[in-house]
């Protein structure tokens, strides 16, 4: 495994927790993001993720560097899976270790927020009656994807 990677196979979160664990670490936070069945009352059958993989891995590594600067003494590993994922499967894993727990919690949340705003990965929701590429919903509804 690489500490910052885009993968196509199912994610084993323990590998990332093991990677960040060191003798100096008193805490490891392990976040796993999963495929959710129900969003805004609409049932998702499965998700399809796509990435600009080389750039996405660079951006993940940069998030790790930002975390090391903001919370010295932490170590981070992040993986995002692409391809077709079923309900309940892990799409993203973030592991952060730190000497004390507060930093590991804060840094872990920082990582997922940064992923959602800057890492070139896209999610397509597949429903019973249509599909849609999901974009940044803070700005406006998805205008690139086809409408169901």
């Amino acid at each position: 495994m690489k500490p910052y990677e885009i993968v196509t196979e199912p994610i084993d979160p323990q590998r990332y927790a093991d990677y960040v664990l060191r003798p100096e670490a008193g805490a490891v936070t392990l976040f796993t993001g999963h495929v959710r069945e129900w969003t805004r009352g609409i049932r998702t059958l499965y998700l399809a993720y796509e990435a600009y993989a080389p750039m996405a891995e660079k951006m993940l590594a940069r998030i790790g560097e930002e975390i090391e600067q903001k919370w010295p003494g932490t170590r981070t590993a992040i993986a995002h899976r692409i391809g077709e994922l079923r309900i309940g499967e892990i799409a993203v894993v973030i592991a952060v270790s730190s000497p004390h727990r507060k930093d590991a919690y804060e840094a872990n949340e920082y990582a997922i927020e940064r992923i959602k705003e800057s890492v070139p990965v896209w999610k397509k929701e597949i429903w019973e009656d249509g599909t849609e590429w999901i974009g940044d919903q803070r700005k406006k509804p998805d205008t690139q994807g086809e409408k169901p």
Partner: protein
Amino acid sequence: MITLLYFAGLREATGTAQEEADLDGKTVAELIAWVGERYPHLSLEAVRVAINEEYAPESDVLQAGDTAALIPPVSGG
């Protein structure tokens, strides 16, 4: 020549993942305008451009051999 990459909804709407274009010396803003003329049905307002895997401001100038990726709003996580 510049290599253009399209992802997600842009890839589906253009029907292409990658193409070459003679945009050497053009700015990122001019690149977006070129794409908008070529594919008038695309909505490009929220699209960012990455040159050689780095987000680039609209004033950046493209050079022969660059790879320019059109990045629609991301939705990872």
